[in-house]
């Protein structure tokens, strides 16, 4: 390179520097695109690669873990069963004042709803759902499922007495069914006949005749409910079945409610029979639906049933959450549960208290061990670490059962204490099937989760800090307390979070050794999941537990700082 060109080059470099400094806009890459965009493009490939690598696990977690949890949490507020099973009743109850039993209209709506629910065998499910809120409703619903067939029978008989045609399915289909559906249904029936037994083509879904819903709104609704139900549930054809008694009830209510002119304006099929019936209904013998239901089961004629249905008629409810904190939803608002039914607050308190005791015992027992481990030569400490890990390789069930053997009143520990003479033979200690048992067994089981983070943090505290402290004049204790201990706090924090969160949700051990007083909230959750089948309440309890853990985590973060947590 000649001197001239060298000078030129350095001059160019200087100009470029000046330009860089003068430009205020975004930094540009060599090709003139913004540097950020170029960088992003360069990194995108890497990011995609990383995403691909984690994709299988991510999908697995989402499908098998996150989605079920979200679904489960959703159940804690979900309450569609009432409005889905009793849609008409829920609507009819909208303007109920909750002072007195509801009107006949509500009972009629209940009759239509319940009839369909009973035919579809959904009433018992709703019964057990409402039974969580008001005890006894489950049996009411079960019993009413059998009685519902007879509701409206009085009217059915009177209509048939009036005109035998009302007994014929054809009369009803002619009145109610859309002509298109009738021909489709006939076609289907013919095909079914021709094909014989193996025919599995679905029936065409029932459709109402145009305009009929204007003339006979309740009847049309009740008949459609009947037609669809027998099509779907029994695979029978509405053309061959006599309608339910509640359809006659609906017809009576429609005709009784309609002015004569409305029926007179109807010119569709069966107009003549309808006009005759309309003329006759005023002389029909009537029954009180409230009494009919009351005879079926007393609960229908009492307030709690209606209050419960009304309170839980919304598709979403806070009821499970309220129940989870010993409150209940009543028409007068939120109230405390009766004293003898309050258990969840107590259980939460007990769970938190015992988890705290377990965590503290783990710190007290684990800290010296971890300190020793981290200050021993590597060979010895590895050996001892294996001993710490040994419980991990033994089944949880085996360990817990071992504690049962050790702790029971005729067990090893009591035997030794009696033998040594610390306690009298008739005053053996109750060490199991209570809180003591749970705390002892869980401290033992969770101890490694405390020791490992403590150990890994202590391992990174160099010995020269304590030496420095001593050389500065600190006694052994001061050097430990003011220099070593503060540096081990991240390990204590990590261990405590780990042990506390694990223990707050622990299930097996409290179940096995906790007895009546040493069980946790998780045992109650399990009970609701697998025995009482009140999944909503279980989900609410679980959500509260999850929220509790998150709150504690947040408090910890504010106090200690989550950056201070070290697991290794």
């Amino acid at each position, binding site marked *: 390179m000649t001197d001239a060109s060298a000078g030129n080059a350095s001059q160019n470099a200087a100009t470029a520097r000046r330009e860089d400094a003068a430009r205020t806009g975004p930094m540009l890459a060599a090709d003139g695109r913004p540097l950020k965009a170029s960088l992003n493009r360069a990194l995108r490939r890497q990011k995609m690669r990383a995403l691909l690598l984690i994709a299988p696990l991510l999908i697995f977690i989402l499908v098998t873990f996150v989605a079920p949890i979200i679904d489960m949490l959703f159940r804690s507020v979900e309450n569609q069963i009432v409005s889905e099973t009793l849609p008409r009743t829920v609507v009819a109850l909208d303007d109920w004042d909750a002072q007195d039993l509801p009107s006949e209209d509500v009972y009629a709506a209940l009759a239509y709803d319940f009839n369909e629910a009973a035919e579809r065998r959904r009433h018992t499910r709703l019964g057990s759902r409402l039974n969580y809120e008001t005890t006894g409703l489950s049996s009411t619903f079960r019993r009413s499922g059998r009685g519902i067939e007879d509701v409206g029978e009085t009217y059915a008989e009177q209509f048939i007495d009036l005109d035998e045609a009302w007994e014929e399915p054809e009369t009803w289909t002619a009145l109610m069914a859309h002509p298109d559906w009738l021909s489709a249904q006939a076609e289907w029936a013919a095909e079914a006949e021709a094909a014989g037994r193996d025919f599995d083509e679905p029936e065409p879904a029932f459709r109402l005749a145009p305009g009929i819903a204007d003339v006979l709104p309740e009847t049309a609704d009740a008949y459609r409910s009947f037609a669809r139900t027998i099509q779907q549930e029994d695979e029978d054809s509405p053309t061959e079945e006599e309608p339910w008694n509640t359809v006659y009830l609906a017809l009576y209510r429609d005709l009784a409610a309609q002015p004569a002119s409305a029926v007179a304006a109807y010119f569709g099929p069966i107009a003549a029979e309808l006009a005759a019936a309309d003329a006759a209904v005023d002389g029909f013998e009537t029954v009180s639906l409230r009494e009919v239901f009351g005879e079926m089961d007393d609960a229908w004629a009492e307030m709690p049933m209606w209050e419960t249905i009304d309170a839980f008629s919304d598709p979403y409810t806070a009821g499970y959450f309220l129940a989870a904190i010993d409150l209940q939803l009543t028409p007068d608002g939120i109230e405390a549960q009766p004293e003898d039914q309050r258990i969840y607050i107590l259980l939460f308190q007990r769970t938190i208290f015992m988890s705290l005791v377990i965590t503290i015992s783990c710190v007290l027992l684990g800290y010296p061990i971890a300190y020793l481990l981290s200050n021993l030569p590597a060979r010895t400490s590895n050996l001892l670490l294996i001993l710490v890990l040994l419980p991990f390789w033994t089944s949880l069930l085996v360990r817990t059962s071992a504690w049962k053997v050790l702790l029971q009143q005729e067990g090893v520990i009591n035997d030794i204490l009696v033998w040594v003479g610390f306690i009298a033979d008739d005053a053996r200690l109750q060490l199991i099937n209570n809180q003591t048992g749970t705390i002892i067994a869980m401290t033992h089981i969770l101890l490694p989760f405390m020791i490992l983070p403590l150990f890994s943090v202590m391992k990174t505290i160099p010995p020269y800090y304590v030496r420095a402290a001593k050389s500065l004049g600190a006694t052994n204790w001061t050097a430990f307390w003011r220099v070593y201990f*503060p540096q081990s706090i991240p390990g204590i924090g990590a261990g405590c979070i780990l042990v506390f969160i694990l223990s707050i949700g622990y299930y097996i051990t409290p179940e096995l050794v906790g007895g009546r007083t040493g069980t946790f909230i998780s045992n109650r959750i399990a009970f609701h999941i697998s025995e009482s089948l009140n999944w909503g309440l279980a989900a609410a309890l679980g959500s509260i537990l999850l929220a509790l853990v998150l709150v504690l985590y947040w408090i910890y973060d504010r106090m200690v700082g989550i950056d201070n947590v070290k697991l290794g």
Partner: protein
Amino acid sequence: MGLTSNAQDAFVTFDRVQKSYDGETLVVKDLNLQIGKGEFLTMLGPSGSGKTTCLMMLAGFETATHGEITLDGRPINNIPPHKRGIGMVFQNYALFPHMTVAENLSFPLEVRKIGKSDREAKIKRALDMVQMGSFAGRRPSQLSGGQQQRIALARALVFEPELVLMDEPLGALDKQLRETLQFEITNLAHELGITVVYVTHDQTEALTMSDRVAVFDDGRIQQLDAPDTLYEEPKNSFVAQFIGENNTLTGVVSKMKGATCEVRLDDGEIIDAVPVNVSQVGERTQVSIRPERVEYNPERLTEGAHTIHAEVLEFIYMGDIYRTRLRVAGHDTFVMKTRNAPDQRRLTPGEKIEIGWRPQDCRALDA
């Protein structure tokens, strides 16, 4: 160096101290050392030579297996470290990470139960001493390595100990910072009149900072002398090799002539040398010559001294000096350093020259 090292007025003494960790080998073998008050003594040696162990015994973190260590006349073998009142600076600074700079400095004062106002005055003075007055509120992690070491130094001095131990305090710093701090530490030590025992494996550091240097090897002090004596007059071949750059030729003593002797090198050439630890004709010896004492310019060679043949293998221009690698008496690693002066000729590889040195610069040491 005017300090006389007799056991009576010594501040620190090691008296026949031995140390073994495993009961089989001695890490420190029969150590005798007197350190005067106000003296800056450096323990220099390769790793594993026992120098750090000696320092730890003095600090109280290791106990001597045998022998006695006294501090200001008191035996301290059974005094725990926190009662010895010795300041210490560690290689990794060992500043407490969870405390601020001021809290770090306050720590030794608090454990001595010094009142708050007194503490603050002392902390301020100590920080000013190391020019870190404005950093009191920082955490150690917010400081650079050099700053941390200054704080560590201030912390070791803040409780006014008479003896300060430094264990390779500058080992983790870069060269330039190291030189600045070397200078600051020695100045501070002399200003405050404290006694410093300094451990390092960096011989430049040892030579520039110390009043005396103890060269350790194999658990023994090989030589204990002022830096210039150590460099100019190494007492054995280990010290000669370890301190500074050194050329070694091997041969047999062929003639003793009182203050000098003649050595017949392995290829038959004869050179003059000062017998240091050889005493009779026929003994094998390693002859040591510093590269900067080798001359090839005939005008500068001493009258009557032996010269030997050399072949230039490599010539390196290093700015202030030229470094020439020669083949001498069969050795390919013989180095000659010459000052870059106007009258100095640049040699070319392959050139055959005659080299020589003053007989007193050539020391016949143990083989």
